[in-house]
């Protein structure tokens, strides 16, 4: 139930309007024992199971493409905002001490970073649902002795929600424009980690919390399992993993 628990946790931590868009892992898992495995004709059949899975996949596809569309629109808008700023104040506007400029730039920066985060979270959404599906299929094959898993996964790999290349491209573009947008890095390393953490907890917002949570979830899920096997992923080794786990994500109220 480790994945199930993790998924549940992730769902609780994620954006409210995303919550019902995830895989109904628990429900599907509960169906598995009632599947007919050749001996038990009264159980659910493969068609039914596949139907359910397809339902889920449709759900993912619909949600994913909708979000993607939103991101594309927002991306353009952010670019336009930035373009306006540059037009108004010139590309070296950093020198300006105009308060309007600073405010607007700060807002744009925050929006872009959050935008980036949301896109990454959508990718994470795709990934976590894929993982869940793979697990369910593995359980199915184990229970029924069928060979549903391989071809089904092949089909999943071609689904819109799994093909995250357009989003990935947007994310990369975002990253490069952020690099250009931020003022030259202050002496960041001199600052203490704790101060930074605090600042982040305060200003990070939901998007940031979610990305940290997602990283932690990913790490957890890949720690190694009892059923480690042929199609499992190797454990995740993140540098700075302690740093990530030290984030206090559970209190919604910032501690200043």
């Amino acid at each position: 139930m480790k994945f199930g628990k993790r998924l549940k946790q992730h769902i609780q931590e994620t954006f409210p309007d995303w919550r019902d868009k995830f895989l109904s892992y628990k429900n599907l898992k509960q169906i598995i024992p009632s599947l007919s495995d050749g001996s038990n004709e009264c159980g659910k059949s493969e068609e039914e199971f596949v139907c359910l899975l397809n339902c889920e996949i449709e759900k993912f596809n619909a949600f994913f493409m909708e979000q993607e569309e939103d991101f594309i629109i927002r991306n353009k808008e952010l670019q336009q905002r930035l373009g306006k700023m540059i037009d108004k104040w010139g590309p070296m506007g950093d020198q300006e001490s105009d308060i309007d400029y600073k405010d607007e730039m700060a807002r744009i920066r925050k929006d872009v970073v959050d935008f980036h985060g949301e896109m990454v979270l959508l990718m994470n959404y795709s990934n976590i649902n894929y993982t869940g599906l793979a697990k369910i299929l593995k359980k199915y094959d184990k229970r029924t002795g069928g060979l549903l898993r391989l071809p089904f996964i092949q089909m999943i790999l071609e689904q819109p929600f799994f093909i995250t290349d357009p989003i990935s491209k947007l994310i990369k573009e975002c990253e490069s424009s952020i690099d250009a947008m931020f003022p030259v890095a202050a002496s960041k390393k001199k600052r203490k980690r704790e101060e930074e953490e605090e600042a982040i907890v305060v200003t990070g917002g939901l998007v940031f919390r979610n990305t940290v949570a997602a990283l932690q979830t990913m790490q957890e899920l890949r720690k190694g399992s009892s059923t480690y096997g042929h199609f499992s992923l190797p454990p995740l080794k993140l540098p700075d993993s302690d740093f990530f786990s030290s984030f206090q994500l559970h209190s919604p109220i910032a501690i200043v």
Partner: protein
Amino acid sequence: MEARHALSFQSSSARQLSNHGAPGGLSSSLPVLSNPLLADYQEASMERTLASNPIDVRPLLPSNSGVVGPIFSSSAGFSSDLQYSTSASHGKHSTKTPFTSQLSNPGATMPLYNPCESRVFKSTSSSCYTTERNNDSWITDSVRSYLDCPVTSPGLNNQIDDKNGVCVVPSEDFNKTSDWQEWAEHLITDDNALPPNWVDLLVDDTTVAGPEPQIPYQMSTTPVNCPVQQPQVHQQQSQVQQQQQVNLQLPASSEETCTAVTPSSSAGGSSTSTKARMRWTPELHEAFVEAVNKLGGSERATPKGVLKQMKVEGLTIYHVKSHLQKYRTARYKPDSVEGSSERKLMPIEELSSLDLKTGIEITEALRMQMEVQKRLHEQLEIQRNLQLRIEEQGKQLQMMFEKQQKSGLDMAKALSSDMDKREAIQDSLAKSEEATLLSQHQLPADVPENAIPAAENISSHVREKQKQPEVEISKDLAATVTDKSTSQPVKRLKVNE
């Protein structure tokens, strides 16, 4: 849930129809939706049946009625699934066509069509939009690939325009013009009847573009590129007629599909029908923005005007409408779209934070946030690539095993000991995969880079071998693994054997 009830009903009807429990093949009475994806799978699992039980396509459909809309509409439901073949499959068409040509014999095709597969593929809904992965405009690529592999369907499908960035192209191999017309007529006359689901799927294709005069155009221009599929189509058609009485449909979905069928109802602008889901791309959005700007801005532009201005084939007014709505919202409240959930939850936090912290600190915080996000993105990419490779390898190994199975054994023996073979194959597969993963696992620091050469080595090694499957291959793999990594994997494999 309605879907479930219909599902169970259809399952029982399916059982009546099908020779349930025949592991060796599929009942020929089962309608099998040919599908380009299906065709691909035919290649993968040519003479083996994937599922132990033949699976009727029908039950799939109702369950998707509410949920499925992704491509065409929530109303089109299941239809959307079948209509869209993955364009990824198109990308691989050159290799697949030899196999599809094998399917030209109607008699032979039936056993090869595993309803399970067809069901599996049904969900490759909007894949046509999505599967292109190269740097070119994926739309044009998918267009080309569509031409490679005859994947056409009446309805929106044929509006592939190289110049335009739209790929609203669900496609079905088996959509031959004449068949479509027959079925469409059939369904139109049976206005409130409950036609078999998969026929609806086909029909939905035509009727999605109902109100527009494009249907005749589309149907007439359906390229007959896939002669292979036609016999299957005919077969299915006869089956459909047979099963018509038996099949039931969810009332909801039947309504939806019925409305989709009749041009009048769809022309009535029912919001449920003809709402195909469109996968927007930045290029398409650019064209959209240009069109809107030409028409005087997002407020003044009308969906119809924008549609005309964009001149993108396959784009419906519903697509434009919903997109315009999103666009307007984004423009007038740029912040609300991005941070609506956020801001609702922590308005106080934000204000106080901005007051208390200096600009530099905020910038630093944002920088940290970027770090985390970049890291997550990186890891997601790596994980995704790994998953792809693992599955790819699994697929290759399985194909290899099947080939050996075919060549090495009697077909009769293979059928009778099918289950055993599968288990054995699975075991061997498992061992091979384990070997692969272990080799990956041994190199934690650079998982992706080392996984790739190891995986490639193993697959090439496996392909070279022509011995009996199972134990020998596992040992060969073990040998390969030993070459490339530490001795631990070998030990482990040996223990397993």
